[in-house]
């Protein structure tokens, strides 16, 4: 077997090959060698740039990206010379597909690292025990926003869980014909409502009742519910359809009325999946900003009453501290980053908990 080195420098195979099946194929270590080589070259190049311009610093995303690009070019030509154009194309596509994944990872890594780095600056006790009342520069906290988020999301959940669950029960157990089809279709359409339109809807609803300029916590809750209901319906519907039909038939054969079959057989069987779906839907609406900005407004004060006055929420807190930076801009930015970190932590916790519930408590279906 001929020795291959990293750049496109190849020796023609000399003499008889020991294994005829391996002819015309690159040995396994070659792609990895080329990948390592291109990384080393790019790190060297970017290190030169970094030393030339000390303020710029080392550009890690650029290094990773250009290394993979260099690898793709080199492997294509190496493979073309030894393996022929078809396999070379195959290797090129493999590189491109992997590159796509790397491209998606770059913003995720950059986003999470900046949020964690900047967010820890104000991650202290004051942040979770104080509101922003009478705070101009440094200090202050987001207790009022966290309270508002929990109250409004809770209210939205109380509104949308019964409606969503009953609708999915209707679709799976009762629904026949035109109405069921229409509901399925419009639930799908409803998942696509822009969040700000849901906020405008909740606002207009209360304007018609109370007159213009009204901002209420409950309006924010209704806007969130409009966004949450279709998600709950879709996920619960899928879970209810997973319940084996034999269970229902066995219960019917014992003479159990239909509503008790649903209540005592279908729902307990799918309870883990339903809980997971509901938690995921909560984690989706808890980060919504636009509808709350429009329907619930923002305030610096604590407000426990959904039916009275403006109510702050964590996403809107992040937004308003970012947009209206006061005289000490850094203090506002720090609070915004810490709010963002708190928000991400809440959403991640809900997601992980939901996945844990799904894995730990779901009935073992033979699939």
């Amino acid at each position, binding site marked *: 077997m001929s020795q291959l080195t990293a750049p496109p420098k190849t020796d023609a195979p000399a003499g008889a090959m020991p294994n005829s099946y391996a002819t015309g194929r690159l040995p396994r270590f070659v792609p990895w060698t080329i990948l390592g080589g291109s990384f080393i070259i790019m790190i060297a190049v970017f290190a030169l740039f970094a030393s030339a311009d000390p303020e710029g610093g080392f550009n890690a995303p650029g290094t990773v990206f250009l290394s993979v690009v260099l690898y793709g070019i080199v492997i294509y030509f190496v493979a073309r010379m030894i393996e022929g154009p078809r396999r070379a194309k195959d290797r090129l596509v493999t590189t491109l597909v992997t590159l796509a994944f790397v491209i998606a990872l770059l913003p995720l890594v950059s986003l999470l690292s900046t949020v964690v780095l900047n967010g820890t600056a104000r991650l202290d006790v004051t942040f979770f025990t104080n509101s922003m009342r009478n705070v101009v520069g440094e200090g202050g906290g987001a207790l009022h926003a966290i309270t508002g988020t929990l109250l409004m999301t809770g209210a939205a959940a109380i509104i949308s869980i019964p409606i969503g669950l009953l609708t999915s029960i209707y679709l799976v157990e009762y629904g026949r014909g035109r109405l069921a089809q229409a509901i399925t279709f419009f639930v799908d*359409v409803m998942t696509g409502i822009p969040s700000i339109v849901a906020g405008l809807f909740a606002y207009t609803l209360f304007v018609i009742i109370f007159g213009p300029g009204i901002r209420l916590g409950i309006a924010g809750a209704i806007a969130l519910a409009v966004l949450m209901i279709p998600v709950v319906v879709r996920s619960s519907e899928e879970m209810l359809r997973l319940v084996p039909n034999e269970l229902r038939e066995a219960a019917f054969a014992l003479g159990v009325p239909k509503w008790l079959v649903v209540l005592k057989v279908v729902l307990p069987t799918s309870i883990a999946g339903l809980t997971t779906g509901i938690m995921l839907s909560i984690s989706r609406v808890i980060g919504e900003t636009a509808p709350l900005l429009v329907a619930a407004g923002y305030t610096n004060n604590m407000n426990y009453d959904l039916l009275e006055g403006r109510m702050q929420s964590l996403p809107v807190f992040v937004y308003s501290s970012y947009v209206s930076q006061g005289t000490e801009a850094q203090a506002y930015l720090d609070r915004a980053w810490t709010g963002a970190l708190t928000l991400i932590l809440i959403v991640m916790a809900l997601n992980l908990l939901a996945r844990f519930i799904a894995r730990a408590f779901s009935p073992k279906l033979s699939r």
Partner: protein
Amino acid sequence: MTAPATTALIPAKQRPGDRIFSGSALVAGSLILAVLAAVAAFLVLQSVPAVTTDPEDISILRGENLLEYVWPLVFGTLWSATIALILAVPVAIGIALFISHYAPRRLAQGLGYVIDLLAAVPSVVFGLWGGNVLAPAVQPFYTWLEQNFGWFPLFAGPASGTGRTILTASVVLAVMILPIITAICREVFLQTPVLHEEAALALGATRWEMIRMAVLPFGRAGIVSAAMLGLGRALGETMAVAMVLSASGGVTFNLISSSNPSTIAANIALSFPEAYGVNVNVLIATGLILFAITLLVNTIARIVVNRRKDFSGAN
């Protein structure tokens, strides 16, 4: 899945519990239709004053009529969403292929979770990141584009000094719609009949030829509908655009200059808190237009999906 067929032949005894339960389920289902109708009705109702009032009396219009005010916003919405889609779809297809056909089986599910993490990040955090991290990072690149590709109308410049251009906003939008497109494409690619794939490989096709001949033709409808759903999401996305873009209004195709069209959703978010009187109705009217556009896009996507019923669960 459905009730036993015998119930159609011999009507079961109707107990009060049955009637209450099925009745409430029916009411809940109908309530969804009612809510959707109410959204449309209330928005129309509140939009009426924006059309009937004399444009001279509405301060937010600055002397223009309603159409002149809305058109740049509609353009900005469509333009930013289109760029986001062009950026996101190839990457999303690549990631979906990577997870479904390239990654080692054991890693595949974990990698899928990693992409789902992107979907879990709230939009306001994306906005914060786009405005504070991404925009300064890409600004030198825009200057370079202007110097080297200034002859190309999209990069005509002068390059924005802050980097908060419509291209930056579209990149953030593309990152945000990536997970939804990836998720649907992945489901569709995984549903390719294994026999088709094995037949292609048995005929001597390389992995890429197998994907081109078996996987992509099978998943074409799924890819189209995934792109449409992503488009719907990008059209309605508010905070990322509001926090990243420094909008100046007007219609321009220039991607990197400091004069950028705003989008409907971002304009509402920025103007609504200070709006009063008929201005509010004007903003609601723009919201109605956004609602109509997304409804249209989503309906087309759903019709495409429902034609291949197998994919309808994929969201």
